[in-house]
């Protein structure tokens, strides 16, 4: 019986093109046969072990579990497709990054950070890819749309939640020397080169990630 539950889950995960959540996996079974959450989790655990030595793996992303090819085989597998993977422009990636870390964000807020207008095309592409969606409107004049990332975005990038994103670099304290301009003007040949400290990085605050997760689970 346990083997059957595991086999049915395995079969379904392979048949599905999208990740399946534990609830979805439970719903494959009819009333009396429905396994509880823990049995599904156990079965998933067994599957994970069974495939650990194979070329594919069972991974968990934001919307559930899916089988995927281990990335060490991507070189060969990519040859199956003549189509090269899309390269996204820096403008698009920057816009996406701002939405991912600052969500919910309006277009104006994105433009403030980037210092340039955000093209309609970029917003369209992001929405078409279903990485970004409008989750409401800000109650300010013009009621601009508020953008947030989607579960599909997390799925696409193999993330379980936004907290798995690489941490955003810290803002450093600004400590200006009033005379520095004059010194530099005189031909100071020892310019300091301090970049934003790589080690001191900021995890998204607890509060923040909670907020975001609630937005994420909102039904479509």
């Amino acid at each position, binding site marked *: 019986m346990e083997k059957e539950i595991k086999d049915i889950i395995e*079969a379904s995960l*392979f*048949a*599905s*093109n999208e990740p399946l959540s534990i609830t979805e996996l439970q719903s494959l079974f009819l009333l009396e046969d429905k396994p509880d959450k823990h049995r599904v989790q156990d079965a998933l655990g067994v599957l994970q072990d069974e495939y650990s030595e194979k070329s*594919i793996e069972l991974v968990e992303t934001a919307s559930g579990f*899916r*089988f*995927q*090819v281990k*990335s060490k085989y*991507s070189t060969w*597998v990519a040859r199956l*497709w003549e189509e090269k*993977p899309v390269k996204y422009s*820096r403008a698009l*990636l*920057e816009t*996406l*990054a*701002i939405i*991912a*870390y600052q969500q919910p964000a309006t277009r104006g807020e994105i433009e403030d*950070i*980037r*210092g*340039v*207008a955000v093209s309609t*095309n970029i917003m*369209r592409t992001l929405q*078409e890819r279903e990485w970004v969606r409008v989750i409401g409107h800000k109650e300010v004049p013009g009621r601009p749309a508020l953008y947030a990332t989607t579960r599909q975005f997390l*799925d*696409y*990038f*193999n*993330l379980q939640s936004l907290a798995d*994103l*690489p941490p*955003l*670099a*810290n*803002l*450093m304290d*600004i*400590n*200006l*020397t*009033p005379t*520095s*301009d004059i010194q*530099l*003007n005189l*031909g100071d*040949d020892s*310019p*300091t*080169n*301090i*970049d*934003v400290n790589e080690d001191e990085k900021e995890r998204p605050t607890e509060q923040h990630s909670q907020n975001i997760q609630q937005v994420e689970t909102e039904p479509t």
Partner: protein
Amino acid sequence: MDSTPNNVVPIQQPLALVDGKPFQQLPDDLYIPPDALEVFLETFEGPLDLLLYLIKNQNMDVLNISVLKITEQYIEYIEMMQNLRMELAAEYLVMAAMLAEIKSKMLLPRTVEELEEEEDPRAELIRRLQEYERFKRAADDIDKMPRLYRDNFLATAEWVVDKIDKPLPDVELDAVLLAFQEVLKRAEKFSSHHIQREPLSVRERMSRVLAKLNDDSEAFLAFHRFFTAEEGRQGVVVTFLAILELCREGLIDIVQGESQSEVWVKPIAE
């Protein structure tokens, strides 16, 4: 505001030396477009990005920039963009104005107390630069993250359906048009993909003419059979254009035994 000679950015170097004389300006009638330079300038994602580049290039600390120097270089860059007749986003000009304002404030003599009370005019700019830089990095990080269809591929198995029909997806016309816009945008980048611009009614009629030829058991169809009087003048014109276009594309032949005799339309011989 003379720039220090030992600390010159590449742009400040003369563009060319002619008879030993440096040329700073691109002549208007320059035949070869300075593509390389243009591409270089276009890689900036806006004024903040350009400023960060200038700062890095000067080994300056973002937290303590020399506004005087940066302003000069920045203005040189946007002048160059204008000389190249690049479409200069308004944001670049706004930034130039902002820099000029900060510079003028920096030049005003102030007492020590004033300096302590007032915020350094550079502070706001530096905040913005820092803020932009962290998202620029975040964008790089996101780009490096493993993603589907580049680093990861779904592992699926075929499921042979025989019992139930999978429901057919619904499609909105907008979605189809949107897809086509994307195609057009992509195609614009490759000049080899010329997309015909015949009116749709003609292309539709081309399909119908071909279908008629194809569905008909006879290999030839008389020219007049493609025209129906009910369609009126417009219809006749569209059909005529469609037949000519098909002929031009080598999809059909128009033949006539002798002058004054019946004109026939046939698919190109096999």
